[in-house]
């Protein structure tokens, strides 16, 4: 959980730094990214229309109203998942890479066709994980696919660069021994840590309003995403929001 939230924030973060960025929704049939980006009423054509030659990229791309170097390519609401073909996706990505600096692909859940299409042409992958058994296991499977079934793997090129983004993290619960810690997850998945996003009510409030949470600059989650984007671009930033807030004497007494 948190892939679409992350795609919205990372693409917004990249674009805000002046990079021309497009974010593509690969969740055919279950599109959500348009809602998180607050452009659901501006969708005319979608990704599948472009693949099938029913619309041009320019007709389908939606320009973000907040950050003018950011574009959204929405997923189709109705079509079959198989409408995403390797050739079709490749053609769209090739065309986009002529004008965009970054192409962010929001993967659907699971390890099936849609997810495989979203990762196939990747140069870098942000593996979004929750500190929870089933999520970590799924992430390990996705890493297996990146390492064997991505284009880079099939062509024996340098591997896809992997990043771990741990989200919905609750340091208090970690301290109580109720939740896997950052280091537990790092140890199991054994890939470099891009960032830790705390579990936060702000994320839900932002998505209710159609604001990528990275634009909530005062919030922990927004700042954590901003750090992650900076690290993605090669900046060194210390990890934050990984330890529980120190409680005052009274709150400690009352919480027990």
């Amino acid at each position: 959980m948190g892939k679409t939230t992350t795609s919205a924030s990372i693409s917004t973060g990249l674009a805000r730094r002046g990079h021309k960025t497009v974010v593509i929704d690969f969740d055919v049939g279950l599109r959500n990214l348009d809602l998180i980006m607050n452009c659901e009423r501006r969708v005319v054509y979608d990704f599948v229309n472009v693949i099938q030659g029913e619309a041009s990229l320019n007709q389908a791309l939606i320009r973000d109203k907040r950050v003018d170097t950011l574009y959204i390519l929405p997923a189709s609401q109705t079509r079959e998942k198989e409408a995403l073909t390797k050739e079709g996706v490749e053609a769209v990505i090739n065309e986009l890479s002529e004008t965009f600096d970054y192409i962010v692909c929001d993967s659907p859940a699971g390890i099936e066709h849609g997810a495989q299409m979203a990762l196939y042409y990747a140069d870098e992958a942000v593996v979004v994980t929750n500190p929870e058994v089933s999520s970590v296991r799924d992430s390990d499977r996705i890493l297996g696919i990146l390492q064997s079934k991505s284009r880079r793997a099939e062509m024996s090129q340098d591997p896809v660069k992997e990043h771990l983004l741990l989200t919905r993290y609750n340091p208090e619960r970690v301290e109580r021994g109720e939740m896997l810690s950052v280091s537990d997850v790092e140890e199991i998945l054994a890939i470099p840590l891009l960032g830790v996003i705390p579990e936060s009510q702000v994320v839900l409030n932002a998505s209710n309003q159609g604001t990528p949470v990275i634009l909530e600059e005062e919030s922990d989650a927004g700042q954590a995403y901003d750090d992650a984007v900076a690290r993605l671009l090669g900046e060194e930033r210390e990890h934050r929001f990984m330890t529980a807030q120190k409680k005052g004497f009274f709150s400690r007494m009352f919480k027990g």
Partner: protein
Amino acid sequence: MSFLDYFKSKKTNTASIAKERLQIIVAHERGHREQPDYLPQLQQELLAVIRKYVQIDDDMVQVEVDRNDSCSILELNVTLPEH
């Protein structure tokens, strides 16, 4: 150890259980990932051959490939039922 810590430590640490389970399952699945594609088919055919002589369950035949730098070893384990 403080009074409060005493009660805290009485609770089971479910995170460490989660970590242990994950380490086992992930190691298991990674091992399988590196196996050649023909293994399931090979296992089925071996089963069919053995069943001409002895009745055994599907999981009684285990086939695995162990790779190291210089060679690969096909490891075959057949468990026969007790009499």
